[in-house]
């Protein structure tokens, strides 16, 4: 445990269990050292926000958590990342199985150019989660309900997902991620392409998702981080500068860099 980043007391107060624990994670792209010795523990059933200026490595670190970095050429990840005590970079781990457990929502809504139903049903289909058609229908409905979009799309499930508005598309993408029954939801700036109303809807949704999932969200908006997260991690130049309760990070930051960033002096 890295003492200068997080204390046991703080952790014990807000988060009963640790979902993901990362220790000394380094990421290299070719000669670029993108992440330097990051250690963090992400609690379950809460929202953890990653903030920091552009290029600070917060998205890279997020993508380490479901091994999406595997698909990037020359990307080297070292250190340990444990999900429920299991090393996700162990050679025995199939990233496909990991990604069903750790779902991801991307910056730009990226529904498949298929029907809304097929978008949500795709994950359960390839993972064999549904026994039959009615079972699959149930999963799709539940996922769309949890993503707070069911009411808007229930009458047009066979319409193409790409025909929805940006905010609706993003919620369908969240439903798609939920449908594989994940335990963790990673969100990479999920509201950056949305208007304020859609953003408010997604934020409300994220707060509800906390009941069932551990949510990790990368955001550029400090207000958003303050509004929806319980834990906040501040990244700068590839290092994790500060990680703690959102309230503490925003009201009483320990590190002067964090203070500069949240007061708008760097970034």
């Amino acid at each position, binding site marked *: 445990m890295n003492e200068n980043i997080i204390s046991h007391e703080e952790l014990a107060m807000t988060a009963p269990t640790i979902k993901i624990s990362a220790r000394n994670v380094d990421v290299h792209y070719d000669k670029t050292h993108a992440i330097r010795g990051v250690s963090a523990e992400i609690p379950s059933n809460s929202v953890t926000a990653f903030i920091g200026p552009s290029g600070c490595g917060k998205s890279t670190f997020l993508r380490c958590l*479901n091994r*999406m970095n595997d*698909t990037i*050429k020359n990307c080297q990840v070292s250190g340990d990342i444990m999900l429920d005590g299991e090393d996700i970079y162990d050679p025995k781990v199939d990233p*496909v*199985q*990991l*990604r*069903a457990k750790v*779902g*991801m*929502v*991307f910056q*730009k809504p*990226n*529904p*498949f*150019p*298929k029907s809304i139903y097929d978008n949500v049903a*795709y*994950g359960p289909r*390839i*993972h064999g989660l549904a026994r039959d058609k009615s079972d699959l229908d149930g999963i799709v409905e539940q996922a769309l309900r949890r993503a707070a979009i069911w009411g808007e799309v229930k009458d047009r499930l066979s319409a193409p997902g790409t025909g929805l508005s940006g905010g609706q598309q993003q919620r369908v*993408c969240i439903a*798609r*991620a939920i*449908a*594989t029954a994940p335990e963790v939801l990673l969100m990479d700036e999920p509201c950056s392409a949305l208007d304020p109303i859609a953003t408010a809807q997604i934020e409300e949704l994220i707060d509800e998702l906390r009941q069932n999932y551990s949510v990790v969200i990368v955001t550029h908006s400090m207000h958003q981080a303050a509004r929806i997260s319980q834990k906040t991690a501040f990244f700068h130049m590839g290092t994790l500068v500060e990680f703690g309760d959102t309230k503490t990070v925003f009201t009483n930051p320990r590190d002067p860099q964090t203070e500069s960033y949240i007061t708008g002096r760097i970034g």
Partner: protein
Amino acid sequence: MIEPNPHKSLFVASAQTKQRATAEKRFHMLGLTAIFIALSMLAILMTTIVAKGSGAFQQSFITLDVALLEAKLDKKGTRNPDNLKKVTTFGYAPLIKAAMEQIVVARGIETDLTSKDMAAIVSKSAAAQMRDRVLNDPRLIGTTTEFKFLANSWIDGYLKGRVTRETIGKNKNISSAQLDFADRLIELGIIEKSFNIQFILGADASDQRPEDAGIGVAIIGSFAMMCVVLLLALPIGVAASIYLEEFAPENRLTDFIEVNVANLAAVPSIVFGILGLAFFINMMHLPQSAPLVGGLVLTLMTLPTIIISTRAALKAVPPSIRSAALGVGASKMQTTIHHVLPLATPGILTGTILGLAQALGETAPLLLIGMIGYVATNMPETVSQGLLSPNSAMPAQIYEWAKRADPAFYERAWGGIIILLIFLVTMNLIAVRLRRRFERRW
């Protein structure tokens, strides 16, 4: 100095603006001129082809009542098929002379021609035509039956205006007396021009009877080759592109492969022809002149085109779709098969059909593997015959006709070009349609 000048009116164009406007106008005119030149070239091409080629679809026919004498065709009177077959086309030829004499007498035509010269205006294919019909239906023997014979190419040319009394001069094939005789037969409605389906369905004919030559067998040859190309080049090309684009590691070897694929697309087609001759025929001992070999050679030639267009289509699929699929836990292969490939389908199909169209019009490699010239006299009857027995292809057939001496073949070459173009336009239309359909689905 950057200072605002309130005295400058927007209604007065400055010298520079005027210059710019002129340049723009000039550029506009340049573009229009280029389009106009291109369109007039196309118009010249199309009118020439249609004007010169449409004649091939019309042919002059001579309708004669021929007495099929038993004494000539079946001396024993047994109608035994084996005996009937023993009578060659030479046995049938006198019947045409007799039929001509019959007409001269019956219709009161005045002519100094011998019966041999009169019969000469009928195509040399006539005897074979009669023999085939008699062998098919021996009951015709002993009756007088109406036959619609092809006129020979000189008479046909006379009807089409290609041959005149001035141009024949000392031509040994036709005399002005024969033309006079033909004129009388035209007046009597015995010689008539009509649509010639045999040009589209028939086989090539020897130098002696251009009027009998058709492009049908060559169409089958081309079709068989296209089947081979489609069945081989599409799966191989798509599989290779998917591997190179989605799975291959980026290293020197894949770079090398990439450069070579691009280079292969630019290799002259005749090189593929000589490769096919050396490898498929000399080494693997596949039959010469066979559409299978032609198809294999054209496959080699088409592969780079298909690979390049398929890779471009795969590259055009947005990476966010791949991320989305990987993000819900699809494997690399599932991502490719379920999401990337369907989105790339319109591009792949367009590339494939354009590659096929290119292969359909290819002549040079076929020269080297012997798919040219007077190689097939009959339609192939089975699929394996279609693939393995000697055949030609449409462009090779056109080339063959164009180089023969008789001007009647020249007309057929143009006619063949019309048919080839119809095929190419059809294929392009199919490409457009498929593209639209798949794009609408997604």
